[in-house]
Every structure is written in C-alpha cells, then in structure tokens.
C-alpha cells in the first residue's frame, strides 16, 4: 500500500489545481444545499402545523381551510359529539376558525395577501403549541390581533402596540406568538366574528379544529362527523391534513428542482472531467510507482483516496457556504414569502443535514468516479509504456 501521506502531499503539491476542483464541487454543493434547504424548510413548517391529537373538519371537497365554509349549526352540533377533550372551563375543545386572505401592507410598503385567522378562545387550548412571546393574548370582540413571529417581522404595524389595516378593518396588535416554527407563525390571528363581519360572509367559520379526548376512538368520531346527513363534512387528522399540504407544496418545486438537477449534472460532469484529466496527466508518475513495485490496486486506491479528499474538502467548503448563505438570507431578507399551499407562507431558510445528504453523495460520486477509471487505466499500462508517455 502507498502511505496515506502520499495522497495528502500530492494533494498539497497541486494545491492550485486542487483548489479549482474544490471550488467547483463547493459551488455544486452550495446550490443543491440551498435549494433543498428551501423546500424542506417549507415542508417542515407545514408539517409542524399539524398535531396527531387534533382533527380538522372542512366542508367536503374543500382541500384547504381557506376554501371551505361551515354552517354555524355544524359547529353547535359537533361540539357535543363523543370523544372530544374538555378544556379548563369544562367546555368541549372545539375551535371554530375562519381563514381569510385580505390585502395588507408589508414593511416595504407593498400590497400583499395576508393570512388572517379568525379564532375563539378555544383555539389557544386546541393549538397547544402556541406561545405568546411578546405582549398578551387577544381579547374577544375588542378589535385586537396577535401576530405570528414570521408575520410580525414582515407586515407593517404587526408589533405590540401597532395597528394593522387588513381588509376593511383595522386591528390593534397586542402580542406576538410562536408555534414551534410552524406555518401558523405566518398568520395574524383576530376574533372570528369580527373577521366574518368584515368579509360579510354568511357562515362565520371555515374549519373546526377538535382536540381528541385521551384514549378516544378517532376513527369513530371521524366516521360520525363525515356521515352526518345534515351537513356535508369531511374530517381528517390534522397531522395527515398538513402532510398532504406539504406534499402538494413540493409539487410546485418540480420545475425548480428539475433545473437544479440539470445544473448539478452539468457541474458534476465538469468536476469529474477535471479530476479525470488530472489523473490522466499523471500517467508517468503511475508508471514510476508501478516500476517501484506497487500493485495496481494500491496505486488506484491511493489516487481515488486523493480525489475523494478533494471531494470532501469541496463538500465541506460548500456546506459551510450554504449554511452561511442561509444565515445571511435570514439576517438580511428575513422571512422569505414562498408560494406553497394555496397561499404564501413565510419561511426562514435553514440548511440541515438532510439537505446536504444528496450533495454529499454527489461529491463522493464525483471523487470516486473522477479518479477510479483513469487510475485503473494508467495502472494497467506496462510500466515501461507508462513511463514513455506524457
């Protein structure tokens, strides 16, 4: 076997060429990492919004709670079904909610559709991951609003004490909430009835969120809701509902993903090519090693090791850059509005291990693929021929 030091020193000896290859691999890793980070951040925040302990009830045929309408009687009836948890006040934990997207203003002064959710007090017990981090919760029927953390940083007046003009109404913001980084943080929450009055919609609710009682039979409750002949409703576990939303959000990214794949393949081609050429150019060196008595396998593995070393260095640099870029975007741009689940959600980009896994595999493939073939081929030559070459 050739000593490990041989690979490392050879890598260092050709540092300017190695640096070019490292740069190429780093750029590929950066591009793929950022892109994947964006998509997974969007999906993670969507998924995080759902709890397996909750049910969501929509009008049958509606795929999101923005495009649904429920009669008041449905709420009043379902509240007293079996299998629903009770709140601190002993009332059933059923949260009627109303989602509208009126125009609002961003801090940059642009008109944008804002996700506004009308809630009643039960909402805070059903969505138990909601925590008020600034100010206080909203009082019913008092024209107050609270803003999710992401929404607070994006929209004009969305800080405690500020006023937000949404639709025809204007709300006083009294607090900011967090929801474990979920999509709910993109929303502004106001009183459900005030919101319904503003939109002049006859039925004040678009969905119900239900907290299941401990040990309750969720399937039985869902069957009972879905089969009630008075209303045409469809219920599902909240976690499954958001899982579906996340999947449909991913579909929109196929175009971008396709372009990135094209880019990745192109760059991988190039990187493999340069490594290939580098090894090919060292035919004489390989001949010398053969003449010294090193076996083909030893030489090939040493060369592969060297190029894998280059690939790793490129990956490390690219991963660091991707992480840095995500930090910079978060610090400078803040929340990126992404069009995902039928509405814009505000996403902060994070590049995690999973996002880099594919880039890592690609870098490894470049490293091995770029060196193995030419090294084997050169090692197969008779030493005397190899020495004459180049």
């Amino acid at each position, binding site marked *: 076997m050739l000593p490990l030091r041989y690979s490392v020193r050879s890598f260092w000896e050709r540092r300017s*060429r190695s640096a*070019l*290859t490292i740069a*190429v691999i780093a*750029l*590929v890793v*950066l*591009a793929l990492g*950022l*892109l994947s980070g*964006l998509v997974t951040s969007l999906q993670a925040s969507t998924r995080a919004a759902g709890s397996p302990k909750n049910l969501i009830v929509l*009008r*049958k*045929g*509606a*795929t*999101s709670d923005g*495009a*649904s*309408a429920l009669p008041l009687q449905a709420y009043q009836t379902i509240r007293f079904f079996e299998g629903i948890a009770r709140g601190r006040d002993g009332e059933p934990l059923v949260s009627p909610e109303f989602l*509208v*997207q*009126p*125009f609002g203003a961003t801090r940059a002064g642009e008109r944008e*559709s804002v996700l506004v959710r009308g809630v009643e007090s039960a909402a805070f017990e059903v969505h138990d991951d909601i925590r008020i981090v600034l100010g206080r919760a909203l009082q019913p029927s008092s024209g107050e609003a609270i803003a999710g953390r992401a929404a607070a940083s994006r929209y004009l007046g969305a800080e405690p004490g500020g006023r937000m003009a*949404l*639709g*025809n109404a204007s709300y006083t913001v009294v607090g900011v909430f967090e929801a474990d980084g979920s999509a709910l943080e993109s929303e502004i929450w106001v009183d459900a009835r005030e919101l319904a009055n*503003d*939109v*002049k*919609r006859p039925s004040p609710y*678009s969905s119900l969120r239900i907290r299941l009682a401990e040990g309750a039979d969720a399937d039985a409750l869902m069957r009972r809701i879905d089969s009630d002949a008075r209303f*045409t409703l*469809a219920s599902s576990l909240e976690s499954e509902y958001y899982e579906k939303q996340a999947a449909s959000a991913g579909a929109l990214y196929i*175009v*971008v993903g396709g*372009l*990135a794949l*094209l*880019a990745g*393949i*192109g*760059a991988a*081609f*190039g*990187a493999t*090519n*340069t490594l*290939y*050429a*580098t090894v*090919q*150019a060292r035919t004489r060196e390989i001949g010398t090693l053969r003449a010294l008595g090193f076996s083909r396998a030893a030489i090939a593995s040493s060369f592969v090791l060297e190029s894998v070393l280059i690939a790793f260095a490129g990956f490390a640099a690219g991963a660091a850059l991707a992480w840095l870029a995500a930090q910079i975007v978060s610090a400078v741009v803040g929340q*990126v*509005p*992404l*069009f995902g689940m039928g509405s*814009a959600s505000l996403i902060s980009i994070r590049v995690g291990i999973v996002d880099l896994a594919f880039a890592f595999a690609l870098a490894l493939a470049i490293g091995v693929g770029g060196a193995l073939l030419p090294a084997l081929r050169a090692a197969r030559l008779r030493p005397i021929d190899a020495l004459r070459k*180049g």
Partner: protein
Amino acid sequence: MKYLPLVLANLRRSPLRSVLTAAAIAFAIALVCLLRSMPGALESILDYAASGSRVVVQNKAGFEYPLPYAYLQKVRALPGVVSAVSWTWYGGVYEVEKGVTFPSFATEPDQIAEVFPDWQLPPEMVESFQRHRDGAIIGRATAKSYGWEVGDRVTLRGDTFPVDLELVIIGIVPHDLSPVMLLQREYFDQALQAIGSGLDFASLFYVRVDDRARLEPLAREIDALFRNSGAQTLTESEKDYFKTMFSALDAFIAITIVVSVLVALCIVFIAANTASLSVRERAGELAVLKSMGFRKRLLFRLLIAEVLVIALVGGAAGALGSFLITLGLHGAATGLMPQLGPLGSFVITRAIAVQGLFLAVFIGMIAGAVPSWGASRRGVAETMRELF
C-alpha cells in the same frame, strides 16, 4: 484558417475530455437559455391572457371580499366603457378528493363575447350559453384534461357555497390559457335562493374600455366613484391584476437565478481547469513549435482557438437542447398534457440562443486566456530543460 486542422487534431488527442468539457458547457448554456426565457414566458402569458383594453375591478380589501352587484350598472354607465361583466367565484369541486382543480365563475352570458373578443367565442356558442340556464363554457385545456365534450353533464360541488350545481357543457372556449369554467349567474343565484340566501355581490368585474389610452384614467375614475361607498374598489389593468397573482412566483425566480449564476461560475472554473491541464501537458510540444519559428501570438491564438471550438460546440448544443426542451414542453402542453399549461409558453427566441452562444464564447475566452497566455510566453530553453 489553415491551422484549423491542427486545432481539430489537438482536440481529438483526448476526445473524451473534449466531449465532456463541451457537454458541461452545453448544460450550462441550456440552463441559462431556459432561465433567460422565463421572464419572456411570463410576459407572453400575460400578453396572451390579458387584453390591453380591459380593467379588473375588485374589492379593495381583497379577493374574498364581496363587490356589491349594484356597482356593475354604475360602471357600465360610465363614458368610455364598452361593456362589463361580473365574475363571481363559485369554486366548484368535480372530484371530491382533489378539491378545486379549475376556477369556476358565474357571469352574465349576454355581454361575455363583447368583453372578451380575444377569446373568439363563436356566435352560436354565445347564443346557446344565453339560452341554456344550466349551460357552462369551459377553457380548452381544462375540457381536454377531463375529456369533456359539448353536451356532457357535469355536477360540481360548492366548496365555499353550500350548493351543488348540475351543468351542461355547451361550449369549449378556443383559448389555450384560460382554464376557467363560466356558468350563468342567474342559475347560481336561483340555486342560492332555494336555500334561503341569494347573490347580491360579485367577486370582480371585467370592464372593456373603448380606448386603450383611457385605461388608467378610467381605472381611477371607477375607484373615485366608489370611494365613499360601503365597499371601496381596487381597479387595475388586467395585466397588472395577473401580475399580482404571478408575484407569488417571485421567490422561485430569485432562486433559479441564484442557482444559474452558481452553475455558470462552476462551468467557468471547470473549463479553465481543463484548458490549463491540456496546455501543461503539451509544454514540450509547444516549446518545439516555438523553436521551429512559431510566434508567441500565433501559439496563443491556436491554444485559445481550441477552447473556443469546444465552447462554441457546447454552446450550440446547449442552445439547441434548450430549444428542443421548450418545443417538447409546448407540444406536451398543447397536446397530451394540457395540465402543464403555462410551461408550454417558454420560447427560446433567436436572441436568447445567440446570447447563449456569446456567453459560451465568453466563458471560453476567460477560461482559455490565462493558461494560453502563460504557455505562449514561456521560454523555450526553460521548458526544454524542465522536460528533458
């Protein structure tokens, strides 16, 4: 020119490397061409979908906020308005598990042809739409994706409105980018009255103006007319209205631009690396050529010509490839897979292809310049000594 065979022979010396480098450049150029065609595609979608002689009126508060139906008569009475119709979102669901897959609106059939002359509705279709209370007309792409034909019965389930509507397709709109289904406002109204409500509002108005130059003034006039009414309006040109909807795509566009810049940079690095390698390999040969009397300048040109040939071949392949991709998308979108819709409107224009080629040449120049310059300048004796 007489040195061309020499350049080509040099390229054949390591055919795999030449091909791979050209392929990398081709990928980069194809990508850049596709991205360059994106704003054009959006613009052409807008131009095709939006007529320059219509404005859209909606509630200033947002799309889901109702626009009082009585406003329509007032708008129609304004000087300069040729005709106007209201569209009211119905949100019909065809397959329950999929949700709303195409937009459906209720409208007035009597003026629809005047407001949308660009749709080229045949007069007998318009007449039939007026006559059939439960009739609906639907965009070609949507009809195709469901295999619907004129005369088919379709039942839609309301998602925000608690009424289901049974409709008969009486016409297919010969317009590629309008996925919309339109049904009679009166029919929708009666269905709502049957459950005790009714329709006294609309989602938006489409207003056709007689003079394109009067578009902006008229939009301001409409908003001024309702400034002190219960519901204020937001009137904008149809193109701006669509642009707001497309602005949701801004983030995508930004991402794709970042990715493409990174890739272009990659390719420059790669090409530079390859060029410097092939020059270094040939140091001895170059020294020989020099001692035979080849001038520095000529050697430099020969070396850079090699890189440029690769870049040009790669660039041409890339531009052609992107053209074929858009051709395929267009074919698929208008033929087998209408659901691809707007993806079919990417067009690689001659200008974009030429820009792609220029970019390829530029990449070749940058990548080839430094190593070729260095090699052509190196002293003969010095090189020979290094080699032997």
